[in-house]
C-alpha cells in the first residue's frame, strides 16, 4: 500500500463518502443516488461483475472503502452510457466508475493483473512516447500482454487481418520502426508533466 493510501485513510477515517467526494472525478454526485437500481438494471455487463453501480454507491455510503477501491467492478465498465442516459437523478455514473478506477490506481491498490488496468497502462506508455498512439505497437503489445507464447499464438491468428489492413492502407508496417510523433513532442511532454504536477498536488492536499 502506498503512502498516499495510508494518508487518505488517516484523513477520512469515518467518511469514505467525503473521501470520494473530494478525490474522485464527479465523486460529489454519489450522495445524490437514490438507490432506485435503474443503473444496475440497465448495465449490459452489470450481471457479470461483483457490484453494480448502484451497489458501489451504497457501499461508498456505508464506508466500505477497501471493498470498493480494491474491487474489479469499476474497471469493467465499457462506457456504453446506458446508465447515464437512464439515471433519474442524472448521476454521471460512467464518469464516476472511471473516476473510482483512476483513484484506486493512484493509490496503488488496483487488483493484481486486472486486464483493463494493464491495457490502460500499455496505452498510456505508448501514448507518452510520441504524443500519439502508435496503433501497430499498441496492438502488438496487447497480444503479448499475457506472455510470449500467447503473444505468438494471437499474432498468428490475427495475421490475415493484419495483411488485409496493410493492403487497404489501414496500417503502415513502417510504424514498427520508431513511428511518427506529434509535431511538438517536447511541448506535449511539458503539458503532461504540468498536468501531472497539478494532479499530484491536488491529491497530496487531500491526503496530507
Amino acid at each position: 500500500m502506498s503512502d498516499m493510501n495510508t494518508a487518505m485513510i488517516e484523513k477520512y477515517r469515518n467518511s469514505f463518502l467525503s473521501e470520494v467526494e473530494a478525490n474522485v472525478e464527479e465523486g460529489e454526485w454519489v450522495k445524490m443516488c437514490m438507490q432506485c437500481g435503474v443503473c444496475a438494471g440497465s448495465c449490459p455487463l452489470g450481471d457479470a461483475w461483483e457490484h453494480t453501480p448502484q451497489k458501489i454507491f451504497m457501499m461508498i455510503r456505508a464506508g466500505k472503502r477497501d471493498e470498493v477501491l480494491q474491487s474489479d467492478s469499476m474497471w469493467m465498465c465499457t462506457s456504453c452510457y446506458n446508465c447515464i442516459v437512464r439515471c433519474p437523478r442524472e448521476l454521471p455514473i460512467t464518469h464516476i466508475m472511471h473516476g473510482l478506477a483512476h483513484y484506486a490506481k493512484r493509490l496503488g491498490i488496483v487488483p493484481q493483473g486486472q486486464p483493463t488496468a494493464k491495457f490502460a497502462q500499455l496505452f498510456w506508455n505508448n501514448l507518452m512516447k510520441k504524443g500519439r498512439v502508435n496503433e501497430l505497437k499498441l496492438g502488438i503489445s496487447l497480444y503479448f500482454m499475457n506472455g510470449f507464447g500467447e503473444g505468438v499464438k494471437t499474432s498468428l491468428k490475427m495475421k490475415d487481418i493484419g495483411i488485409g489492413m496493410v493492403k487497404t492502407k489501414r496500417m503502415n508496417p513502417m510504424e514498427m520502426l520508431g513511428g511518427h510523433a506529434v509535431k511538438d513532442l517536447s511541448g506535449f511532454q511539458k503539458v503532461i508533466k504540468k498536468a501531472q504536477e497539478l494532479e499530484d498536488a491536488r491529491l497530496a492536499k487531500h491526503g496530507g
Partner: protein
Amino acid sequence: MADDKKFAGFICTGCGIGERLDAGQLETTAKRDGKMAICHQHEMLCSKEGVQLIRDTIDNDGATHVMIAACSRRAKVEAFSFPDVAMSRANLREGVIWARPDTDEARETTQDMADDYIRMACAEVKYMNKPKMSGEQALNKTILVVGGGVTGMTAALETAAAGFAVHLVEKTGALGGWAAKWHKRIPGRAAADGVANGTNVDLPMPMENDIADMVAAVEANELITVHLNSTVTKTSGAPGRFSADITTESGATATENFGAIVQASGWKEFDPSAIPSLGSSNADVVSNVELEALAKAAGDGPIKRPSDGKEVKSVVFVQNAGQASTAEGHLPYHSGIGDLIAIKQAMYFKAQNGKDCDTTILFDNLRTPGAAGEDFYRSGQQQMVIFSKGQVGDVTSSGNGATVNFRDLILDEDVALQADLVVLDLGMVPNSGPDPYAANESQEGMSDEEKTADNSARETAVTIDSILNLDYRQGTDLPQLKWGFTDSHFICFPYETRRTGIYAAGPVRRPMDIKQAQDDATGAAMKAIQAAINAGQGSAAHPRVGDLSYPSFRKEGCTQCKRCTVECPFGAINEDEKRYPQFNESRCRRCGTCMGACPVRVISFENYSIDTVGQQIKAVDMPDEFSEKPRILVMACENDAYPALDQAAMSGQEISPWARIVPVRCLGSVSLSWVTDAMNSGYDGIVMMGCQRGEDYQCHFVRGSTMAAERMAKVGDTLSTLNLEPERVVVHEVAITDIERAPRLIKEMEEVVEKVGMSPFKF
C-alpha cells in the same frame, strides 16, 4: 286536494326520438294510460321555445304536475328546472332509442319500452308532490371549530375571512397545538422551476416556524372568539341550529348556537412502550416529537444527547418505528410523513452540530409526500445525510448512546450501527372520540349473551373522552372508518362525515403535515359555511345538493320498531319522549335508507316514496306468459349504476328490450315491498344495482348499499313462499365506470329467465 292537481305531459321528438318512435302513440299512452290532462309534443323541448311551452302550460293552464318525456333525467337539468311544480322524466333518449338498435325487428319492442317509460313517468308524477319547506330550517352563520392547533386555527381564519363568525374551542391553555412546539417546519415549496439535478443546487430547506404569527392573527381577529382550557360538553340540534355547551376547566359553561361545526381535534403520538425492541426506555433513544424539543432547547447551537449532555456527533433515524404492522402493540398503518420529518431533523444536526455529524436515516420505504416532496429528499442528500435501506431488528444499549441493529437491504448484510442518539419515527394517532358504531360492528355475528358480555367489558374498559358529546341517539361522536380515523366518502366528498354539518379536518381524518392540514382545514371551513347556508334554505348536503324534500312519517302507522333510527347512516333520527322517531331534516342526506327500512312503509318524501316507485313498477304493461316478452325490473342507484347505464347507451351498448329501469336514490331506499309487488305482478326477474359496500365502500350514503344487501339477503325466503326461483332476484355492485358490465348484468338476467321460464304471475 286531488282536485287541485293538474297533470301535463310533454313529449320531445328531437334528438331522433321522433324518427325512431311513434310520437302519436306515445301521446295517446300518456293521455289514456298516464291520465295526462294536457299533452304536448315538441321537436326540441330543451330549446327556448320548448321550455317556454312548459312554462306557459304551468303559468296559464295551471299545470301542477309535469311529465317530461325526453332525455335522461341526468341531462338538461338546467333547462328542465321548474321548482314550482312536481316533475318526472321519462328517459326516451338514453333509456330507449340509444339503448336499442335501429332495425325493423327491434321497432316493436323499442316502442313498447318507450310506452312503458311514459306510463312509469306518469305514474311517478301522480304520486309526487312539490317539496316544500319543513319550517325547521334555520340560518345561523356562526361556526364552531373544535381544536386550536394549525388545523383549527386555519379553519377559523378561513371562516372569518369569508365573513362568518367563529368560536374556537381549545382544550389546553394556549393556541398552536403541536406545531407551535416544532423547531422548524417541513418546507412548503418545491425547488424553483428549472433547478436542474445537481450536487450544489438551490433546494428547499426547513422553514422557520411561523405558527406564532398564526396564533397572533387568530387572537387579533374580531370575528373569532377563542375559548381556552375549554371543551365541548354537549352538542345538540342539527345543522343551522346546533347548540353547544362550552365548558371551561373550572366548570363554567356557556351555551352557544351554531350553523355548522368543524372538528379539528388533531392527533397524539403513538406510545412505543409496548415494543421493547425499539429501546425507547433508553434516554438516548428519543421520539421524533421529543427531538423537536431537544433541537429547540439547543437554539441554534449543537443538539445534546439527554443522557449526559454530550454534543451529538452521530445520530440514526429509525423510520417507520412500530408502524404499518399488524403485530401486537404496533400501529397498523403508516403515518406517511415520518420521512419528511426525519429529513428535516437530520438537517438540524447538519446545521447545528456541524457538517461532519454523521446522520443516517434507516428507511424501508422512503416517502416524501407534499409540496416539497422529492426535492426535500434531494436537499437532505445534498447535505450529506446518509439514506440506507434497512430493516431494523432492534435498538440496544450499553452505556450512553445506543446501537441500532439492522439488515442492510441493498448490501444484504447485518449491521450494528452505534450512535450518540437514536430518533424513532413514531406514528400519528387520531384524537377521535369513541366510535358510535364500534360495538355494533365488532359484535356482528355474536349471540345475545356474548353481546351483553362484550358490552359490559366495554363499559369497564378505558373510556375515550368524547370530543363533541353529541346528544344524538346514535352516539356521541363522529363515526369512524378504521383505526380511529373519521369516516367519509374519501373519493367523492372527503370532508363530509357521517354527521351532516360536522366536518372533520386535519390529522383526525388521516395523518398529515402542517401544509396539508392547512389545505384540509380550508376545505372543511368552506363546507361548513355551505352546510350552514343549506340548512337555512332547507336543502340537502352532498350528494343530493339542493334537494328540498325531507323524510316524514305517518305516526299512526309507526310500530316504533326503530329500524329507521338504527339504519340511518347519518344519525339523523332521534327519538321523541313517546319513543317515536324524530327526524331532523337538516341532518338528513335524503338517501331514503329509512324509507327502505320501514317494515310498515310509513316513511316518505314528497317527491320519493313507496308509491312513486311502487306505482311505476305497477304501471308497466305486463304482456302475458305466452308473449315471449319477459319483463325485467332494474332498480339502479342514481349515483353510479344509472349514469353507467346512460353512458352505456351513449357509447352504443345495447340494453335488453325487456328491461324497465327505475332509478333509486340509493339501494338502501329499496323497500322489500317493491320486490314482492313486482314479483306478484308478473316480472320475470329483478336486478338491483348499487354501489360497492364494505370497508372500501363506494356507496354515496356510506351504509345504504350494505343495508340493502342485508335486507335483500332475506328475499330468497319470500320467493320460495311464492314458489319462485331465487335466482330471479339479484343484487350487484356497480361502479360508474362499469359501462360494459352494467348492460351485461341485465342480459344475464334475460338468460336466467330463458332458463327458468317466464313468471307464472302474469294476470
